[in-house]
């Protein structure tokens, strides 16, 4: 039983923190808010150099063959830095290709992703805003040329910069995952502007989008377990990123409470503030336990991995919202300003709260399991 990180994992975290502190300052995030792509190409190339883009990919394609724990470590650091960019969406797309892709599909995409030459995303949310993979309504119909896809996929992360979109759609065989390139006729991308300007979403409309036979990942109709698996990875990855945002907000609140004086003393000496900070720490530490337990469980294929993923998303989603919100409270007026950086993390936690199933969605899954 060892809940601590290996020295390699610790090293990865340290180098991620050093890199992001240096290269991903709040000023960068702010500068990119008005940028149509919303990410930095130079930073993407450097992340590829550092091996982050191939972290969980097979060595044969230039990857490091590491697992969810390492991915979560990076994502936690990214949350702490309010990193703007398609890292996690690309990880999810790459995972889909690793799991079900043919040799040709892997050759086409994985090495390019690891090298920083391609980005991807997965359109997990379907038209009626339901994350439930079994409820996907987007249709896939066989045509002479392959398949025709019709439906809507709202809130697809970073689709506007993706070179490949993994799109779940339903045919008579069941649920399949299709690889669609953004230039394909019939595909419309329209940006959604959310609170977190560093988190880009796109509404994707598919109107008779025609893709060839070899756009299907695996055999047609067999993708339900994979899509459920991607959603779990999404949930745990989001938990890690929210954890990072929460820890950053806690650090900022504690640092501020030590120096801000009112009534002739630091505000941190008031119990109302000190106790708030203690409660925030409690939720951050529990979030750490929930996130890394789930990440480990996915890697180890533990019997309770599905449960643990839902628990991590439900717990950390609620906790991070509270912690980041309380950090604003501890700061008073300055915490409510556009110029102060707290809202970058507050908004990141908020944006991820609704992704990959919100807390209520996961609590229903949990209830289903424990009452079965």
């Amino acid at each position: 039983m060892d809940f601590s990180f290996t020295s390699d994992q610790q090293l990865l975290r340290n180098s991620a923190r050093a890199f992001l502190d240096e290269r991903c300052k709040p000023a960068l995030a702010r500068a990119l808010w008005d940028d149509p792509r919303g990410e930095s190409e130079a930073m993407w190339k450097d992340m590829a150099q550092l091996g982050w883009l191939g972290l969980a990919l097979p060595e044969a394609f230039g990857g490091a063959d590491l697992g969810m724990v390492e991915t979560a470590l990076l994502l936690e650091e990214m949350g702490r830095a309010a990193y703007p960019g398609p890292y996690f969406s690309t990880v999810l797309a790459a995972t889909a290709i690793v799991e079900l892709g043919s040799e040709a599909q892997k050759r086409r995409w994985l090495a390019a992703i690891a090298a920083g030459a391609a980005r991807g995303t997965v359109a997990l949310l379907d038209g009626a805003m339901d994350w439930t993979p079994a409820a996907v309504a987007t249709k896939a119909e066989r045509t002479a040329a392959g398949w025709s896809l019709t439906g809507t996929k709202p809130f697809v992360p970073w689709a506007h910069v993706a070179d490949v979109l993994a799109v779940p759609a339903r045919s008579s065989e069941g649920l399949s995952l299709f690889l669609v390139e953004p230039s394909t006729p019939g595909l419309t991308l329209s940006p959604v502007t959310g609170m977190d300007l560093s988190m880009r979403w796109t509404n994707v409309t598919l109107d008779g989008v025609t893709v060839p036979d070899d756009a299907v990942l695996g055999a047609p109709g067999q993708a339900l377990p994979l899509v459920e698996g991607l959603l779990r990875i999404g949930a745990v990855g989001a938990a890690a990123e929210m954890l990072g945002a929460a820890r950053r907000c806690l650090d900022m609140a504690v640092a501020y409470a030590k120096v801000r004086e009112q009534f002739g003393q630091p505000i941190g000496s008031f119990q109302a503030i000190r106790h708030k900070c203690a409660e925030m720490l409690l939720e951050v530490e529990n979030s750490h336990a929930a996130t890394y337990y789930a990440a480990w469980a996915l890697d180890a294929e533990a019997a309770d991995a599905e449960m643990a993923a839902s628990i991590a998303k439900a717990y950390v989603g609620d906790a991070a919202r509270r912690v980041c919100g309380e950090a604003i409270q501890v700061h008073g007026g300055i915490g409510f300003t556009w110029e102060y950086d707290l809202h970058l993390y507050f908004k990141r936690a908020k944006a991820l709260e609704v992704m990959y199933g919100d807390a209520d969605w996961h609590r229903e899954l949990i209830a289903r399991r424990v009452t079965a």
Partner: protein
Amino acid sequence: MDLNYSPEDLAFRDQTRRWFAANTPAHEPRTLDERRAWHRRMYDAGYVGMGWPKEYGGQSATPMQQAIVADEMAHAGAPPTINGLGIGIVGPTIIVHGAEAQKQRYLRKILMADELWCQLYSEPNAGSDLASLKTRAEDAGDHFVVNGQKIWTSGGVIADWGLLLARTDSKVAKHKGISCFLLSMRQPGVEVRPLRQITGSSQFSEVFMTGARAEKADLIGRLGQGWEIAQTTLSYERGGNSLARVTRYASAFYQLVRATKELRRQGRPLVEDPVVRMKIGRIWTELEVQRYAALRVLSALTKGESPGAASSITKLSYSEFEKRYHEIAQEILGPWGQVTVAGPDEFSEVETSSGEPGTWAQAFLWSRAGTIYAGSSEVQKNVIGERVLGLPKEARADRAKV
């Protein structure tokens, strides 16, 4: 990171599970004699004093083995050992701070539950601010004379001995004038009056000491070292039990789930009501997070790391969770949650946090205690704020005087 149990741990767990499956009594022992007999049975099998050194009759077990035994007891629904304070706090205090003669005299009898112990710390005017205690112990040549009153003394009525904090010097700063004694409860100068709790039962009591006698040989450590000793021993309570606590919560939880299938509202079983399902999902989420956190603590203990002030986070986390848990359980159970005498139905009896079975109502009432004893939630938050986060200390009226 590897959250698998090692093959040795698994083997130990199997063996422990088999023993408790074969030996756990069918009926909850009621009388002290029955409970002592069960304690002895566990002692003979090597399941008592897991964390104590072998030379004092313990098992020198790893933190993981300690946790496994506690967890398997919870799993089997086995009755607790008796003398919990003796084994959990008094023994370790004597082992760390006691003289050799004290070790010889007391330790084995604590483990065997030949002598039962209580903790004489809190006073009517010294609770969270324990260091302001007033009970005096005066040097009378060959012994100390003790005068004062203690309160909220768990197990005071059945105790043979008490671990006492008393003031031996009122001229120095309040933390410096306190000493630690072993006090016989079986003497004319000690009177114990049971206090009734909100649960209706009387586990704790008031203790009046009037010219009571503490032997010179029963002073632990040096004169004036009592506060320091109490600080170190308060932390023995934490760690090893947290996994078992979660296991007990979980077995009660599955009873709650059974109840949701039998009870109905608006013409359908509660389990089909989305509002109830959210509550179930919420409890299980928090309960599992408590388990993950317990594993994290256990992993640190296994590496020989001492959690220090961070153990306040654990205490705060589970005791506050326990209140939320029982509040939600009450919401789900409705009038059923009110019942204090268990009926023949299978889901009304659960384990309370006192380690004894009771109804959901009693468990709900007990859940109010955990955020008060062993350092209230407010005190824990002060500790976390000051010692973990390094926030400035508050202005305190008594600090100027010290």
